[in-house]
Structure formats: C-alpha cells, structure tokens
C-alpha cells in the first residue's frame, strides 16, 4: 500500500480549527482592498464595512460556495499534448519561488543577479526533467521591466516547453495580457478555458488581508478557469501567532475567504488549497524556511485540504542555506519528504535555496532526482502473489547450479523498474570507478547534466503568423508606462484600453 499520510491533527482538532477559522471569517472577516470584490461579496450576502474594508463571510455562504470547488482538474502544456491531473490523492512536483539571484561559482560571492536568459534556461530545464512537471516564473528577470515580464515569459514558455506554466496573479492588466496571449498560443479562449495552461499564484497578506493587485489578477485567472494557488505566507511569531495551531487557524480563514471569492467570481473555478507559511526565527527576525515547523505547518495544511476535499499545494525542498552545502541538502530533503508524506498534492520550490531567494539550475536537476526518490518512497510496498514471489525464492534458494542468484531471474527483470528507483545523479559506483569518472561531486555532475540539457534542448516551432502576432503584442505591452499599469489596477483614477480593444473600467478604489 501507499505510505500512510502523516497527520498532525486528530479529527476533533481539525474540527476545532475549522470552527475557529469560521469564527474568524464570520466575526472579523477579511480586509479586501478591491472594491469590485467587496461589492460582489456584498451581493452574495457578505457584510461589508466600507470604512475599514473588512468583509464578514456568513457561514451559510462559506458552506454553499465550498460546494462548487472542484476536487480535480488537468493542466496542459502549450500544445495541449502534455498534461497531468491535479487531484486530492496524487503527488506532483513543480517549481515556484521567484528567486532574484542565481548560483554562479565564478562570482566572488557565489551568486549574481538573475537575468532573463536564466529565466529561459530554467524553462528549458524543467521541460527536460522527468519528475518536475510544471515551471512557474521562477527565475525573476532583473534585466527587463517589471510591467513586461509576464509577456516575455509567456512567449518563451510557448517556445521552450511542453509543460504548463505558472505566473503570479500580477494584477488585472497583466493577468488579462496573459490570458489574451495564451489564448493566441493555444488557439482561442474557449480552448484555454476548457484545457487550462496557466497556474496563477495568489498570496493573501497575513493577517486576513487581500491586497488589490493580487485580487484583481485573481479575478481574471478565475474568470478563465486557470487554476490558482491560494497560499498565504504567514510567519509564526510575526504575521501570525507563534503557535502553529494559531497560524494554521488564521491561514485557513485566509485561504477559505479567498476560495469563496473565487467561486463567486466563477463557480467551479479550480483552486489549490495552499501554504508557504513558516516561522520567524526568534533570534534574527528572519523567516526560516528550512525549519521542521514549516514541515509541520505544511502537513497541517495538507490535512485541512483533505478535510475540504481540495487539492493542496505546499513547499518542499526549502532551505535557508546560502551555499550548496550539507545544510542545503539536509533541509531540502527534510522539507520535501515531510511535504510528500503529509500528502501535499502539488509540491513546489524545486531548484531554489536561501529561502527561495536564490536559484541554482544544478539544484533543479538534483531536485528532480529527489522528487523521483520521494515519489518512490511514498508509493510504499505493493503486496500480491507476484510481488511476494514465492516461486522465484524457491527456485533460486534450491538451485544446485553455481552462480545462480536473483539477478538473472525474469522476476527481477519484470519488476525492477516498478520496484526500484534508478538514480542518475547519485553515485553508487565503487571508488575505483568513481575516480575513473573524474571523482566528481554531485554539484559537478548536476552542472554537467544542466549543460547537456541546454545543448540538446530543441525549441517548439511557432507558426510565423502566430510568432508575429505574439511579438506585436509584446511591443504594445512594452509601450505602456508604469502609470498605465497603476491606472488599470485602480491605483490611479483613469481608464486604459488593452491592445485588442478590451476596456478596463475605472476602478475607484
């Protein structure tokens, strides 16, 4: 059977946390900055305080809206061929993290600022990996304008991968660009809605606050039924109670409040019940992502997600280490394994370190291997007549021929690939062979794999016509000013018209 999930709560404790979160939502509510969201909630029976912007969610509304949340959905790559199901049972590994620096051993500090070329390389590498199924806008490109990053990334996604992609719900304007551009790539809006390509991440701000830009983007993603990851990053002791039960109660309210809003925007819109919450280090005030408490929080969130029957997302492979050392390895496997054992359905943050601030493409390929190992571990042990293998045991044990062992048995050949995980980067050679192969450590071997992938990677061929259309779209987005962006998000009073004539109405925040 599959490995049993680690559970951090009893049934009664789950109920207790659920009730406390509901109490928070009904008595205090959430501060929602976007007025159109507040209006919609009000129309649906929520109690809105215009002054404080707090919206109180009646329990009946919560109960009713949770009913339309899907328990499974599929994500597709640009051409729709590559796809996978996200559900409440399986474990999928992905990236995310938006690191702003990247490992570079040639630099004095061992890191440098991330560039757009790194972003593209990361997409290509994820495309070539076996166990990591989706890349998100991981490597934040410091060399292009903030307000154009999304279109440049989507263009490179269309060109360089078979897998789905993820971006932040970066406001109404950018999210609408994403939907328009992706629709062009996949052959129309109907196709995009029917077979989602993009994951949007939406982070409520703890405690109990939905900021305007994220909420605006969230509305667009849910309108197009692109799955959104709702994941507060609450820190125990600073933006949430230091007690883990308190943090989980608070974030549960934040997640539920956001999910209710998603179902009001568009009933049936797919969401992930997620977390990136961890703790505040009480000596430095820094967040501690590699902490064991982060594993516990993730496990608690996964358990709550199962209670609500919604696919869960949590981080794994997190580490606070600044270099590629033992701490990096210890914390990455500990948090990854805990997340998997906890039954998180979508485990993210592959390839990052220093609390996801830094990316290493070497770690990305190592994480792919770790994901394979962890996936194998949680599959557990299959027991049936064939796997017990009485016949083969009898045969080998009683053989009178010299040199008979299980290696040359058909039973071994038939089952080895399903029973055993075959690592590619971990070295299992004898010392002599390891020396002969250059006595390399795993980072060196990982670098070689990265180089091989990048040399061998073949881009997708975009039709000339589509390519021109996409480049034209990018040009238009590039011509916008930062003020245009602010106007669209309601941060400045005005109007803006999108390239295809869609008008975004004034948002008098």
């Amino acid at each position, binding site marked *: 059977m599959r490995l049993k999930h680690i559970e951090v709560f009893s049934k009664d404790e789950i109920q207790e946390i659920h009730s406390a979160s509901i109490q928070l939502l009904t008595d205090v509510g959430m501060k929602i900055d976007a007025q159109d969201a507040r209006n919609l909630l009000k129309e649906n029976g929520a109690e809105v305080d215009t002054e404080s912007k707090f919206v109180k969610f009646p329990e009946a509304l919560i109960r009713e809206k949770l009913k339309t949340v899907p328990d499974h959905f599929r994500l597709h790559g640009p051409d729709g061929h590559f796809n996978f199901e996200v559900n409440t049972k399986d474990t999928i590994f992905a990236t995310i993290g938006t690191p702003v620096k990247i490992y570079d051993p040639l630099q004095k500090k061992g890191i440098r600022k991330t560039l757009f070329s790194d972003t593209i390389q990361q997409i290509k590498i994820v495309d070539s990996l076996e166990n990591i199924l989706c890349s998100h806008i991981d490597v934040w490109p410091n060399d292009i304008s903030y307000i154009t990053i999304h279109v440049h990334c989507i263009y490179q996604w269309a060109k360089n991968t078979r897998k789905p992609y993820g971006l932040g719900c970066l406001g109404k304007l950018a999210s609408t660009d994403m939907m328009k551009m992706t629709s062009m790539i996949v052959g129309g809006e109907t196709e995009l809605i029917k077979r989602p390509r993009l994951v949007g991440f939406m982070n409520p701000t703890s405690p109990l606050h939905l900021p305007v830009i994220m909420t605006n983007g969230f509305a667009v993603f849910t309108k197009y039924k692109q799955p959104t990851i709702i994941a507060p990053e609450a820190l125990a002791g600073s933006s949430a109670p230091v007690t883990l039960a308190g943090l989980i109660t608070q974030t549960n309210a934040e997640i539920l409040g956001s999910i209710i809003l998603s179902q009001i925007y568009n009933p049936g819109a797919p969401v992930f019940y997620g977390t990136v919450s961890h703790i505040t280090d009480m000596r430095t005030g820094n967040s501690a992502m590699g902490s064991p408490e982060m594993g516990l929080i993730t496990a608690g969130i996964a358990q709550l997600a199962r209670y609500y029957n919604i696919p869960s997302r949590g981080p794994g492979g997190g580490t606070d280490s600044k270099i590629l050392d033992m701490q990096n390895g210890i914390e990455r496997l500990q948090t990854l394994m805990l997340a998997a054992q906890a039954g998180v359905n979508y485990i993210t943050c592959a390839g990052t370190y220093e609390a996801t601030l830094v990316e290493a493409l070497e770690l990305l390929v190592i994480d792919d291997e770790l994901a394979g190992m962890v996936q194998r571990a949680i599959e557990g042990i299959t027991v049936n007549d064939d796997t017990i293998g009485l016949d083969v045991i009898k045969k080998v044990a009683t053989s009178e021929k*010299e*040199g*008979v*062992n299980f*290696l*040359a*048995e*058909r039973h*071994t*050949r038939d089952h*080895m690939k399903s029973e055993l995980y*075959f690592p590619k980067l971990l070295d299992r*050679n*004898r*010392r*002599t*062979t390891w020396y002969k192969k250059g006595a390399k450590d795993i980072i060196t071997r990982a670098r070689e794999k990265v180089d091989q992938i990048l040399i061998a990677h073949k881009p997708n061929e975009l039709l000339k016509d589509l390519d021109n259309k996409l480049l034209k779209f990018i040009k238009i987005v590039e011509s916008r000013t930062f003020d245009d962006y602010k106007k669209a998000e309601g941060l400045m009073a005005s109007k803006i018209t999108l390239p295809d004539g869609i008008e975004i109405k004034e948002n008098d925040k």
Partner: protein
Amino acid sequence: MSIEDEMRQFVEEWDKEGLKEMCKSLIDKGKASPEELLKFIGNIMKFIGEQFENEEIFLPDLIGAADTVKDTIDEILDPAIRKSGGEKETLGKVIIGTVESDVHSIGKDLVGSFLFANGFEVFNLGVEVTADEFISKAEEVGAQVIGLSSLLTMSMDFQRQVIEELKNRGLRDKYIVIVGGAPTSEDWAEQIGADGWADDAIEAVELINNLITK
C-alpha cells in the same frame, strides 16, 4: 532477418530453449557451423555489453542474456565443436571462487558473468573453495587465471593461502592470480603477492584483459 538478428531476439528475450533449438536445427541442417554461431553469440554479447556500458540497460538484462547464451554454448555449440575435433575459441580460461570460510557468492558470480559475457571461459567453483580445489581445477582445465573472492575480513587471509599453496607446489608463475571483494584493496593484493586487484566486475574484466595480453 539475419541469423544473428534472430538469435539476438532469443537472447534479449532470455529464451534459452528457443536459442538452443534454433542453433541445433541450423547445425543439423548444415545451414551454419557451430563456430559461426559462436561468433554471432560473441557479437550479440558485445552489443549487449555496450548497451550496458552506455547505461541503456541494467545488470539483470546483461546477466540474464549471458545466462541464456551459456546454455546454448555448453549444451549445443561446445559439444558440436568437440565432435568435429576442434576446441572453441575463448579469450582465456578463468577459475573463480570464494575462498574458504566465506559463503558470499553474488559479487564473484557477477565477475563470472561479466567475464563470460566478454568472451572468457569461466569455471565458477562456488563458495568455501579450498586452495587444493582451486589449483586442481586450474591444472585440470589448463586455466590462465585464478580469481579469488572474499567478502569478510576474516576470510581474506585464505586468499594468501591459495597463493602460498601455489608456491609450495611450484606453480605460482604458471597462473595469473587476482583477488577481489569488498574488504580487499590494491595494497592487500600487493601484500599477499597477487597479480592484480579489481574493485568491481567491470574492472575485473579490464584487469584480466590487461594481464593476459601482457
């Protein structure tokens, strides 16, 4: 499909009976000589060996293939060659076994399979093999190499005893003696006066190839 391709299918499928029947029928009908078929088997094992080295297939695929062709060689081709007065060509004859007081066999068996897959004739004497048994067999079959395996620090010294016994009988220079097994090392081999040491089965093949052609 050529005869060799057809044979390769049987080997890759580990179809011992299929391969035997095919070879027997070809020889009986005079369509191929046992020497030719042996050459094909050599090519097939070389091909499979390369696949293994390139990490395209795994250990069981290689050992199972070697196991499959071994039956055909022992039961069909070897007798047919002898019948016509010849002797099958091999790269050399190697005696292998685990020394006295040690019952570990798999590492040594792997060395045997790799040597066989690479064209050597292998006499695998099993485990807890005495010095006398090693030497008698080597004398009997006219071997070039004696391979001594030991997996226990407690049994390692029996490797030395085989070498000492060869010296006592005045036969030390007649044989290449190699040692292996987890606790052994190059230093150990030197210390007891062995001709070579290998860390694993792949290394062992290379070592014997080098020592024989010296």
